[in-house]
């Protein structure tokens, strides 16, 4: 059954590259409007999934509908309604900032006169108005990213796909991008975002999916995921002796995890733990609410990927 309120509807979606599985039969339903986050460690299959959604990559198995249309058969009409910020910038180095927008608009069949006004507005939106005539090679990483975002909006898309839009950017640029993305969400656009910054996902996303090794391992609203998968509080202790670890473990409703010199105590009753830690000399501790990163690390483990 096709559902017009779904931007993406995938069932049993698979992709393998020369026999090596990258996406292993995922079922994905992305609702219209709001921000949908796709999280996962390096190599989890996020970019590959998004490339299939855009018809940039063939399916090895499963079924995929985007905006109600079958993929990859309908890729041209689907892409006409989507804006894309790719993981790696592919701005056209042979053109200036403003020309990049015009040339890109032409790929959508939009003429320069039709988008002249819009292009100026988009440059203003990402605060690049004073760089309109600059060549791409002279832009900083943050400027390129902002231009990529402006470019992705040139066709006034219903859906925006952003693959790690803020990786490697300074806090100022990240905050600007977050503000703009919230604005776009309010305009009713659907955002689909991947990120390695959990606080970014927590701030922006209404729903998230966590992928690992090509599979979906958790799905839900960030708050719900934190509630389901983690105790409400975390106490991080530096320099705790083994004896202290034993005493923390003895408290009920807690979970102790040691990573190098740091002890993570996940608990529902932080008060007891704080009472226990307060008098201990030579340690430092930090008490904070559980966040999405705790859930992410719990579900995907602490081992390095790749």
């Amino acid at each position, binding site marked *: 059954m096709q559902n017009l309120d779904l931007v993406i509807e995938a069932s049993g979606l698979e992709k393998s*590259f020369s026999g090596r599985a990258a996406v292993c039969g995922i079922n994905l339903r992305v609702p219209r409007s709001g921000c949908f986050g796709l999280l996962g460690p390096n190599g989890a299959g996020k970019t590959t999934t998004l490339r299939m959604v*855009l*018809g*940039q*990559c*063939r399916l090895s198995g499963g079924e995929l509908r985007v905006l109600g249309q079958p993929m990859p058969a309908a*890729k*041209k*009409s689907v*892409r*006409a309604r*989507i804006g*894309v910020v*790719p993981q*790696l910038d*592919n*701005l*056209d*180095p*042979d*053109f200036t900032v403003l*020309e990049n927008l015009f*040339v*890109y608009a*032409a*790929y*959508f*069949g939009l003429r320069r006169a039709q988008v002249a006004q819009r292009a100026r507005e988009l440059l203003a939106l990402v605060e690049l108005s004073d760089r309109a005539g600059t060549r791409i090679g002279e832009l900083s990483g943050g400027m390129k990213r902002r231009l990529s975002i402006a470019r992705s909006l040139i*066709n006034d898309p219903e859906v925006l796909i952003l693959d790690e839009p803020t990786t490697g950017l300074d806090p100022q640029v990240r905050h600007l991008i977050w503000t703009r993305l919230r604005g776009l969400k309010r305009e009713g656009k659907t955002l689909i975002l991947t990120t390695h910054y959990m606080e970014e996902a927590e701030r922006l996303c209404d729903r998230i999916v966590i992928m690992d090794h090509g599979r979906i391992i958790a799905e839900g609203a960030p708050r719900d995921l934190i509630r389901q998968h983690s105790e409400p509080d975390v106490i991080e202790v530096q320099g705790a002796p083994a004896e202290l670890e034993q005493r923390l473990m003895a408290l009920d409703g807690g979970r102790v995890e040691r990573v190098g010199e740091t002890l993570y105590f996940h608990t529902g009753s932080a008060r007891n733990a704080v009472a226990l830690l307060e008098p201990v000399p030579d340690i430092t501790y930090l008490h904070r609410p559980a966040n999405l990163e705790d859930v992410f690390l719990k579900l995907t483990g602490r081992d390095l990927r790749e």
Partner: protein
Amino acid sequence: MSHPLYFFHGADWAVPRPAPGTFAVWRRNFLVWRKLMGPSLLFNFGEPLLYLLGLGFGLGRFVGEVEGLSYIAFLASGLLASSSMNTATFEGLYSVYTRMVPQQTYDGMLATPVDVDDIVLGEMLWCATKGLISSTAILLVAVGLGALHGWQLLLCLPAFYLTGLCFAGPALVVSSVSKSYDFFAYYVTLAITPMYIFCGVFYPTGALPAFAQSFVSLLPLTHAVALIRPLASGGVPADILLHITVLSFYALAGFYLAVVLVRRRLIQ
């Protein structure tokens, strides 16, 4: 890479269906060219001027007439064909590879309604356009030097374009299977340069030994020369349909193969 059909493993052989996006691809390249038009045209006009002055007049004094043409007219009309070949080939190799691999220009296009079929056709039309520009520059130089003349020269223009298309397809095929720029040396040294030397640009193919003549008659540049030289010198090409058919065949086969291979490279 062990299997001879490695390049086609898992290929998508669906019939190409280019759409209006083709023109946007062509236009992108045109806009870039227009920015650097000055140096580009200087090269287009300067090089043949040197060739025709140096070889045409210089060598021509020793050679005299060839096939009823002054050597400079013979050489100019041969260069008209080889220039479309060389220009379309180099655009289809270096420029296309640059856009495909280091610049990722096509990846950007593939997030829009432009798809592989449009990219390949747009690039082929652009390669042929550049071939047309360079051959037309030679034509103007030759006319300026008094080597060629007459209204019939206008009939050469479609022949230049067809020659460009004929060589654009194979160049795109080579680009699409190359791992780096170095790979082009094989194609240029083994295919393009031999054609330049042996297919009748500098001397009539009749000068070659019989076995070589029959081999050379299969090569596209021979047909481009046989089509363009008479048109440039006021005659009617013998076997005109044969030449057009051979050139069109290379263009179409090259297009189809390039689409299949570029699909495989870009849409994994």
